């Protein structure tokens, strides 16, 4: 069972925290801090598994983490989960976020915390893995977002306009725009591995 899912940045600021077991608010914050301490000390070429800190259950629980650019994705699991499997799950989660937000970066997570929660609840429910098929998850999330938008009324007009443009099927943006002597290179946005 997954006990908690935490995302925080290189300075320890929480970007997402979901606990599947009950802790008080104070304890939750302490757990986030403790986990950050444990995980930030790790070198980049050591293994991705750690014993859990004292607050989250000690050596019965493991912390499985992955470090992407400025963010740490940490899953705290107990012994019934396969460690390597969880590593793959983190990968699928990040790829899903990537698809949903288009080249996701930390800012996306900051400003759309509720959307990230929604995506997560399509993947993990009650501490157990619900769905691992990326396309399936995205389909469901999109459908629910559509429902929300249809209810939004006038306040949702700007959002609708943006999505309309996105769906307009523009031709592909050329990599290299050549107008006479001016050559503009379109940057290749980093993709998450």
């Amino acid at each position, binding site marked *: 069972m997954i006990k908690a899912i935490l995302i925080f940045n290189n300075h320890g600021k*929480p970007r*997402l*925290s*979901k606990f*599947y077991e*009950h802790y008080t*608010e104070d304890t939750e*914050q302490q757990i986030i801090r403790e986990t950050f301490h444990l995980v930030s000390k790790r*070198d980049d*070429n*050591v*293994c*991705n*598994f*750690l*014993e859990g800190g004292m607050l989250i259950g000690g050596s019965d629980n493991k912390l499985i983490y992955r470090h992407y650019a400025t963010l740490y994705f940490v899953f705290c699991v107990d012994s019934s989960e*396969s*460690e*390597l*499997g969880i*590593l*793959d*799950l983190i*990968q*699928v989660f990040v790829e899903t976020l990537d698809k949903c937000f288009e080249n996701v970066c930390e800012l996306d997570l*900051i*400003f759309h*915390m*509720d959307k990230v*929660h*929604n995506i997560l*609840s399509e993947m993990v*429910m*009650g*501490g*157990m*893995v*619900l*769905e*691992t*098929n990326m*396309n*399936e998850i995205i389909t*469901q999330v999109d*459908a*629910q977002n559509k*429902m*929300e938008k249809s*209810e*939004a009324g006038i306040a949702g007009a700007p959002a609708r306009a943006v999505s309309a443009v996105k769906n307009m099927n523009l031709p592909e943006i050329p990599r290299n725009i050549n107008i006479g002597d001016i050559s503009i290179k379109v940057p290749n946005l980093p993709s998450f591995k």
Partner: protein
Amino acid sequence: MPAPIRLRELIRTIRTARTQAEEREMIQKECAAIRSSFREEDNTYRCRNVAKLLYMHMLGYPAHFGQLECLKLIASQKFTDKRIGYLGAMLLLDERQDVHLLMTNCIKNDLNHSTQYVQGVALCTLGCMGSAEMCRDLAGEVEKLLKTSNSYLRKKAALCAVHVIRKVPELMEMFLPATKNLLNEKNHGVLHTSVVLLTEMCERSPDMLAHFRKLVPQLVRILKNLIMSGYSPEHDVSGISDPFLQVRILRLLRILGKGDDDSSEAMNDILAQVATNTETSKNVGNAILYETVLTIMDIKSESGLRVLAINILGRFLLNNDKNIRYVALTSLLKTVQTDHNAVQRHRSTIVDCLKDLDVSIKRRAMELSFALVNGNNVRGMMKELLHFLDMCDPEFKADCASGIFLAAEKYAPSKRWHIDTIMKVLTTAGSYVRDDSVPNLIQLITNSVEMHSYTVQRLYKAVLDDISQQPLVQVASWCMGEYGDLLVSGQCEEEEPIHVTEDEVLDVLEGVLVSNLSSPITRGYALTAIMKLSTRFSSVNRIKRVVSIYGSSIDVELQQRAVEYNALFKKYDHMRSALLERMPIMEKTTTNGPTEILHTNGEAEPSVRDSKHPPNIPQPSSQANDLLDLLGGNDVVPVIQTELPTKPASSGGELLDLLGDLSLSGVPAPAAPISVSQPTFLLDGISSQPLFNDVAGAIPPMTAYNKNGLKIDFTFERSNSNPNVSVITIHASNLTEVDMADFVFQAAVPKTFQLQLLSPSSNVVPGLNKGTVTQVIKVLNPQKQQLRMRIKLTYTHKGSSVQDLAEVNNFPTQSWQ
């Protein structure tokens, strides 16, 4: 009131804060705005406010005032509201707040909603934080949804069912009929969650386990399809088709096959297939292989398959990826008990992992190395482990040191090697060694008689260099005290003898005494060692000086010792050599030090092992003169302690006074019982039973005293555990018509014996032989001399008090031989 700001703006504002204080201010302002907005019962903006509240909650600020608002949102008709409301419920509420029960009705309605997404969100919330009561109420709805054809809802219902079962295990049977068709699904999501549900049910109830065993062929088929099927873009992860499902199925197979031959046989083929066909270049393949290995080890697989599994683990160990190595080490640790030989083959790789930089890998490798040590490889392994002990981080040192001691004890090829290894550990990681290893080591050293001079020489050299490591210094002081004469005499078979003078040894010990680095326990060791040397060395004056200095030390323990040793010099000098004799070989009672019981035949060993001893009732040393003699107490309740007395002088004093002052009038009948803290009688292990079922032998009883109507008989027993101990039970009977009240029996024995008197059965000897008073005496007779005893009787008879003395000489030979 202006419209509350959007979540996005709030976040933007908070991000502009430079300090924590600024951020707190902004948040407080916003909280106030939200609170007033809630009070206005504004429906349109409620969801925005709750979203902001959730964000602030994530940052760590209190958000409990939003709980009711979440409930209101859940009750709303709009999907947007419901979504945020349920999210808020999951984050802010839990079963400890009573408010959560209000949700039950809403969830019930939503579970029957027409829109699947509403149903989905409701299921999600129930599955995350549903309390037992909620689960009981809503289990029926969940079960209904489990049978629906909508795969989106079905998979959610399956996981929700798992949560319900976890909270209320009795409801498990309710979900049984719904599970019949679960595995027939095509949708992988549903399959996956169904397998989770089945796993949970099997883990909880052995009946379910038996019931689901028949599903094994179906599971095997599904797994086969997954492996054999070609590329399927939907479920592909790095080239493997739905590895998550494969892993889950393997886990369920493990549970089903454990201990069951038929199921295990059905699985053998597929496991072999998975093990050989899975690609290992990516993490995904390794995850599946790992799960396969674990399954093979757990079920009753054939030996070929097991060897295959261990080889896979061995290959993992050589992998560059740290995660794989970690995982391999963990599983090898689990299997080393059962398949010891197979794991031994990979010993060298495991030992190499000790040198890895990664802390987690090092720890696993260390544990595994200890598990692999056996008689054949102990020398090589120890070398590696000692090297590791030297280099590793402090957090490992304690565990490593204990592990080395245990392994060395079990597999030491020779005593010298054992002592060398211990010395090395003490010198490299001395301060991390556990407290109870010091007595263990001392016992080990005492028992290897031929190594004494070698040991003491090495310890001396080590202590010359460094006195900061307490366990090392403690062991060294003890040895120097015991074997100082060997050290000075310069004999050593094993090594080149070094020339040490008595003064040098005393210098070292005094250095330990005065050093700031020494703990109080170490100082105690050192002082005792110095004292012991007084019988082995000739420079007694120096020792006397040292001992008298510490008579006024601030440390109570040291002061007490010093004063007693002083007394030993002054008054009891003639006993000193006997008391400070060489320690005999100690018997080990357990493998863990603290309960060690030492035989000391009359020798007072004052070196208290460590502070783990229960505190003896401190007696001022002036009692060395007064002594608590056995002729004193009325209700003498001697506690036979298995620890050692710390009052050597007093016990010596008692022996003297037993025969010396049998003055008739002098012995008062004390009103208060004198608390006996020290046993005057050093027994081993016969601790607290006053009598033992021993060979009651054929020792005839005898009448010790018969005068004035009072008859005292002695019956004898010998102890099985210690041949030097005789147990005498006195039976006092009264032939006159009047009872004898305040009856007190006292006894004294010659110097070479030791006596212990237990409490009498009563003080009144009833007249006319109506009853007897019994009392137990234990006599220790190490020198097997003829037992003689002087007894003194006091009682009140017919109003007047009577006292009498007698000598008992006619003990039967069997009682003391």
